[in-house]
């Protein structure tokens, strides 16, 4: 403990630093909204400080959620500080309010408490603070500035001796006597408010040590038998400096008793408990020469504004949006819920990958709504809908993002309404809707609609570029053709879900890398190897030997999803999303191999993601509550994903698409399906004639 000559000259004090808890800001926000409104008159609050902190902890004035309580609720062994909250309604009012006047007002109050003797009866009045605040409740930004008023009178506090430790000043016997007296004193003076007194008198006599109230000072000071020491419960842990509460006590002493006490002993009482035992030996005794203030009539100068972390006299700001903004809270809760799954069951689960996967949902009907909800559940943040229809009265019961009101006045546009609904469910989602008609092959375009279609195609192409996964959730087969082609051409993960009455299909399209020729595998090997790599898997159209045409003309019941069993869309949508998550968790993603038989003995390690198999197709039969997991190879003559189709699309762009839309046989001719049909016909004829012969 190096005590320089300089530092013994005048006593200097360690200022308070403010310590808030989140609960205070919660309560302030609540009060601002429910009680204060625009009324910005000063409010009484409470703070508290402690004289038992470990060495190295700054003097803290705590203000927590109990600050607004009518009756101060002070933790045991803490001491009360009287606060004024000055909450401003605008940042400008916060900036421009007169800080000098604020401090002056509280200084006058303090001065009055001292001169009137009120602070002798209730010494807690010596510890005050003012808190200037502005709460930006839209951003959850809180601006604040504390002042801990201390009167600058006397101007200096000359020390006549070096500060000494309590244990140097008093014997162990005296110390024990003091502690017993102090404990009894606190118990007897706690009063109705249950608040401990942070200021008291220690009278040292021949017979021992007594503890008394400040109001006994006059009597004790005139007692020639004893010596009076003033004691302050001191939040400072510094070896040479007491904390702020000592200052105003010195002013009080100087005003009332300095005439009788040219020199006063101040006990800076520090009361620490560590490992279950009490220690006060580090308390300090300062001997200060006090200039009498009894003739002073003017309120002296006052200081006390708190400096910020950089040592500047400016306000502070704290951004509590992470813990108070309900939108951010809902985001972090959703994330945490998913992380629980990782922490508890699947340490390798890559949730971030799922979260950043951008999903394009083509179709915002029953499948689109349910797929979107499942994606939300997995934490997906970017979901875009494309649909061209409006919400009708039959929709809300099955299409889980819509409600009755959405059907009124002709019905809202489905894509936008679905996106809006998602944002209402979870504001953290980036959901957009596009009302758009997806052009279909075999549905000839009139001259006048070509330009619109050109625009629509451009939008769709851009949307496919901007997303990682394309869900095909439309209600016609041929509307899936263009996005299948776009997904294949751009190397996207495409998930296709389709409903019959009581059957459904979920299929992931083979993922071709852009620029690479389609890999249909070695010819003829299909039967030999049941394991098909993800890049060799077929698309929705690969198993077809007819190009998509106009299916709305002669639709059979099983192609109309609106007459599927109502639970099917939920099952199917859920399976489509879970399949996506399995794909994303597989090291090869879209390249994950699938097995054509899905028999246990055929399953190899490379097929498994951490969530299990990544099947190519899930075909469900609700009548038997049974699912099959077939896999099939890409078809070299496929009208949607074969190399020749993709090449033509890449080379000719919209011109090629236009031919496909307008000419019914264009795609079949191009891919060689027409020729295949011819060959099939020939072989059938041959087969029949063969049969004929055998008869």
């Amino acid at each position, binding site marked *: 403990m190096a005590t320089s000559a300089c530092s013994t000259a*005048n*006593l*200097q*004090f360690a*200022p308070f*630093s*403010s*310590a*808030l*808890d*989140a*609960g*205070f800001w919660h309560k302030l926000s609540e009060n601002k909204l429910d009680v204060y409104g625009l009324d910005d008159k000063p409010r009484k609050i409470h703070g508290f400080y402690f004289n038992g*902190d*470990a060495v*190295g*902890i*700054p003097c803290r004035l705590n203000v927590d959620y109990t600050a607004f309580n009518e009756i101060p609720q002070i*933790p*045991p062994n803490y001491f009360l500080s009287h606060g004024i909250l000055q909450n401003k309604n605008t*940042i400008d009012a*916060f*900036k*421009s309010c007169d*800080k*000098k006047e604020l401090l002056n007002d509280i200084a006058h109050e303090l001065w009055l408490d001292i001169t009137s003797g009120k602070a002798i009866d209730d010494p807690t009045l010596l510890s005050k603070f003012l808190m200037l605040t502005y709460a930006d409740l839209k951003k959850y930004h*809180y*601006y604040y500035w504390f002042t801990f008023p*201390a009167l600058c009178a006397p101007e*200096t506090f000359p020390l006549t001796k070096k500060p000494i430790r309590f244990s140097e000043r008093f014997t162990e016997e005296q110390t024990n006597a003091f502690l017993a007296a102090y404990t009894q004193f606190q118990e007897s003076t706690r009063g109705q408010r249950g608040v401990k007194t942070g200021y008291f008198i220690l009278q040292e006599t021949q017979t021992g040590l007594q503890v008394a109230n400040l109001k006994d000072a006059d009597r004790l000071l005139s007692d020639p038998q004893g010596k009076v020491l003033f004691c302050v419960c001191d939040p400072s842990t*510094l070896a040479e400096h007491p904390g702020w509460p000592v*200052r105003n006590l010195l002013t009080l002493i100087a005003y009332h008793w300095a005439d009788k006490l040219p020199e006063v002993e101040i006990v800076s009482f520090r009361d620490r*408990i560590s*490992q*279950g*035992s*009490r220690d006060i030996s580090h308390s300090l005794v300062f001997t200060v020469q006090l200039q009498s203030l009894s003739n002073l009539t003017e309120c002296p*100068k006052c*200081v006390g*504004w708190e*400096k*910020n*972390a950089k*040592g500047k*006299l*400016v*306000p*502070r*700001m*704290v*951004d*509590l949006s992470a*813990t108070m903004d309900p939108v951010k*809270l809902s985001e*972090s*809760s959703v994330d*945490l819920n998913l992380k*629980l799954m990782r*922490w*508890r069951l699947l340490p390798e689960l890559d949730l971030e990958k799922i979260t950043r996967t951008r999903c394009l949902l083509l179709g915002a009907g029953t499948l689109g709504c349910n797929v979107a909800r499942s994606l939300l559940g997995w934490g997906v943040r970017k979901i875009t809908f494309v649909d061209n229809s409006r919400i009708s009265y039959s929709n809300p019961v099955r299409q889980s993002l819509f409600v009755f009101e959405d059907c009124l006045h002709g019905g809202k546009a489905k894509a936008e309404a679905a996106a809006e609904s998602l944002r209402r469910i979870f504001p953290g989602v980036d959901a957009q809707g596009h009302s758009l008609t997806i052009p279909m092959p075999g549905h000839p375009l009139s001259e006048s609609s070509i330009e619109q279609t050109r625009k629509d195609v451009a939008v769709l192409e851009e949307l496919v570029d901007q997303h990682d996964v394309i869900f095909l959730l439309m209600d016609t087969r041929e509307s899936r053709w263009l996005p299948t082609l776009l997904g294949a051409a751009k190397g996207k993960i495409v998930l296709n879900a389709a409903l019959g009455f009581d059957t459904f299909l979920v299929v992931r399209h083979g993922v071709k890398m852009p620029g690479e020729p389609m890999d249909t595998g070695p010819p003829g090997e299909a039967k030999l190897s049941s394991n098909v790599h993800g890049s060799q898997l077929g698309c929705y159209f690969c198993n077809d030997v007819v190009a998509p045409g106009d299916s709305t003309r002669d639709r059979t019941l099983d192609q109309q999803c609106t007459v599927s069993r109502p639970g099917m869309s939920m099952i199917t949508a859920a399976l489509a999303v879970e399949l996506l998550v399995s794909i994303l968790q597989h090291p090869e993603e879209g390249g994950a191999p699938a097995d054509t038989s899905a028999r246990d003995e055929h399953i190899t390690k490379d097929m498994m993601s951490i969530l299990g198999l990544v099947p190519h197709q899930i075909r469900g039969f609700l009548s038997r509550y049974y699912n099959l997991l077939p896999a099939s190879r890409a078809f070299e003559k496929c009208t949607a994903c074969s190399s020749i189709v993709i090449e033509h699309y890449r080379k000719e762009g919209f011109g090629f698409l236009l031919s496909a839309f307008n000419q019914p046989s264009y795609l079949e001719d191009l891919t060689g399906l027409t020729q295949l049909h011819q060959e099939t016909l020939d072989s059938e004829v041959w087969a029949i004639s063969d049969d004929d012969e055998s008869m």
Partner: protein
Amino acid sequence: MVDGTISASVFADELHAFVELSATLKDTWQLAMANDSKCGYISKRQLLKLDQHLADVSSGMVESSLEVDELTEQEVEDEESNTIQVKPQTRVISCEYHVVYSDSYSVPVLYFNMYHDSGKLLTLDEIWSLVPQIYQSRLSQERWTFLTQQEHPILGRPYFQLHPCHTASLMKHSVLSRATKPEISTDTAQGLAGVSATSHTPSMRRKGSYLVQWLSSVAPVVRLGMSLEYGLIGNN
């Protein structure tokens, strides 16, 4: 009890006993009664000094205290010679620990928050960075203690939580292993009716010792100070 869980009423008894024990040891656990909850909870505040060692761990923990120099239009003159110039201070983190009963798991749960002096809560990542190194490696293997953020069941504000799902199995082993020691006191506590009188009969424990055992095993993970005296007294 034999499966490591305790009933709400046993928990309430434990709380009272624990708070008494705390007072004996001059610790500062306080009992708080909740309005609509049967058993209330106990709480304790504690300061955590970010010394050199911890400051390294939490170097990324800089408060977002925006430049607010422009926030005051009026120069405030407040310098005077009686105030010491406070050096860039030791960073202090305030910690608040609550022990609350979980009805669904029938075990005590530790809720806690740590915050800067501005009231800003530490993030989950910052909390993890404060978990002592020896537990970091253990936690990555053993999953019985992990941290999540949850709404405090009584206060309704976000708190961190040591998840209770493995507390019962932890306490089962703990209670049984203690039960094999002969010096265990034999006062008959509630909650053990129906336990067959085998050589392992955990015929029991002083009130409060369940909380002492549980809390002392989880406290170090979240830097909650717990005097060794708790264990000594519990065994006497």
